[in-house]
């Protein structure tokens, strides 16, 4: 099988330019999603909020049940119209069409990440157990402090493996934003390969890059997990 290795080498260096974009999207999405998802998980952990719980269940079910590409297309079409509407109503001097697609991508991915992460954190909070919270209250800590100093750290340690999977899923999903013309790894190579039709080489390079990135993330999480082993939740 004859592969054009020269093209592979050149497209590899080309693709490197897309890595910062991927990382930027991933990091920004996580920065937005993790706090919001955690807040939702805490809110749902309280006992008497039936309507809130129902609303979020529907939201999570919708995100879980629809393909990401459909979410991308719908939100990408809807959001500018929505923004234009708000801007016109408030008469802000803002050009909707000047917004870089990257920010739409971040918003869209946050939309689905928040759903997944809220479920992850809910499981984590359940794993920590009510006893820890009661002990904190009995020792005089306020509810807020109890959460920030005792509950949240343990919930995080407990969900690290699943969190790793979620982050990797985010990285893989980010490959889809070539559909909205974002210049990340997949988009760059697709354009390059369409010129000389050496698709296979190009995609092999992309595949290799994603595998390396994901494995690096897994390694980081393994290190974190080892550090957190001491905080193991006791039965």
């Amino acid at each position, binding site marked *: 099988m004859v592969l054009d290795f020269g093209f592979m080498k050149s497209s590899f260096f080309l693709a490197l330019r897309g890595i910062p974009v991927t990382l930027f999207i991933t990091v920004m999405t996580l920065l937005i999603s993790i706090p919001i998802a955690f807040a939702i998980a805490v809110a749902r952990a309280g006992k008497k909020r039936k309507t809130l719980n129902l609303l979020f269940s529907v939201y999570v079910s919708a995100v879980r049940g629809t393909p990401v590409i459909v979410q991308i297309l719908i939100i990408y079409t809807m959001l500018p119209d929505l923004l234009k509407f708000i801007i016109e109503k408030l008469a802000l001097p803002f050009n909707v069409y000047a917004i870089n697609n990257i920010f739409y991508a971040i918003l869209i991915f946050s939309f689905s990440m928040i759903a997944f992460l809220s479920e992850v954190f809910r499981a984590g909070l359940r794993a920590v157990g009510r*006893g*820890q919270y*009661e*002990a*904190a*209250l*009995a*020792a*005089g*800590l*306020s509810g807020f*402090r109890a959460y920030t*100093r*005792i509950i949240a*750290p*343990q919930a995080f*340690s407990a969900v690290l493996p699943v969190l790793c999977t979620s982050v990797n899923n985010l990285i893989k999903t980010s490959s889809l934003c070539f559909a909205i013309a974002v210049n990340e790894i997949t988009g760059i190579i697709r354009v390059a390969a369409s010129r000389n039709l050496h698709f296979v080489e190009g995609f092999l390079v992309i595949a290799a890059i994603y595998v390396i990135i994901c494995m690096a993330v897994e390694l980081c999480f393994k290190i974190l997990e080892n550090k957190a082993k*001491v*905080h*193991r*939740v*006791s039965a």
Partner: protein
Amino acid sequence: MLELTGVCKFFGKNEILKGVNLKVDSGDVVVILGPSGSGKTTLLRCINFLEIADKGTMVFGDKTIQLRRAKKSEVAFVRKKTSFVFQNYNLFNNKTALENVTEGLIYGRKIPAKEARDIGVKALEKVGMLDRSDFYPSQLSGGQQQRVGIARAIAGNPDVILFDEPTSALDPELIGEVLGIMKKLAAKEGTTMIVVTHEMSFAQSVATKVIFMDSGVILEEGEPREFFVHPRHERTKQFLRSILYETEYNI
């Protein structure tokens, strides 16, 4: 020092506490006995508002508090003056033994860190856990964890310490070390304690007052000698008989 009147608590349709009155004086060691489901743990948890009673009044020191409508400041007041030792220890898993003791001091009682550390060290010394002060709960045995739990409780210098079946989750060999510390606290330090337990030896030797609860009411209370030798109620006699049979049955 602490007096509860007319405490009632419903869980759904079940009336768990049916009008309980309790009086505790400074230096008292009150032991609450009773079959499971009698409401003894619930009563204890109502005192520091881990459960909110449906009816009842608490007089603590010079404050009178309505249990059902207690304000945040009143709850905080009670929690500052009491400490709780849990059946499952409930040590903060992500903190070392010393940090477990100092957390409540620094963030709950607003004591500066250095002072808190000194208090914590002294407390751990009293329970014999000073050499493991930077161990995490997952590295300690059950008995050791509970000792840290007690250190956490005494560090805050509370008026009353509430013990919820502190030895029920321990292996038999480890029960002795925890009971020993509790006895020392009662005898040497004169700590006021309310203890829910099944450990008869503790009740007989350390308690100043023994209370028997059944089905949400206090059936009998009195000094240990009177209680164990001349119980008045038939139900109390029944309960004591079954407990004593247990201790005689050790094959």
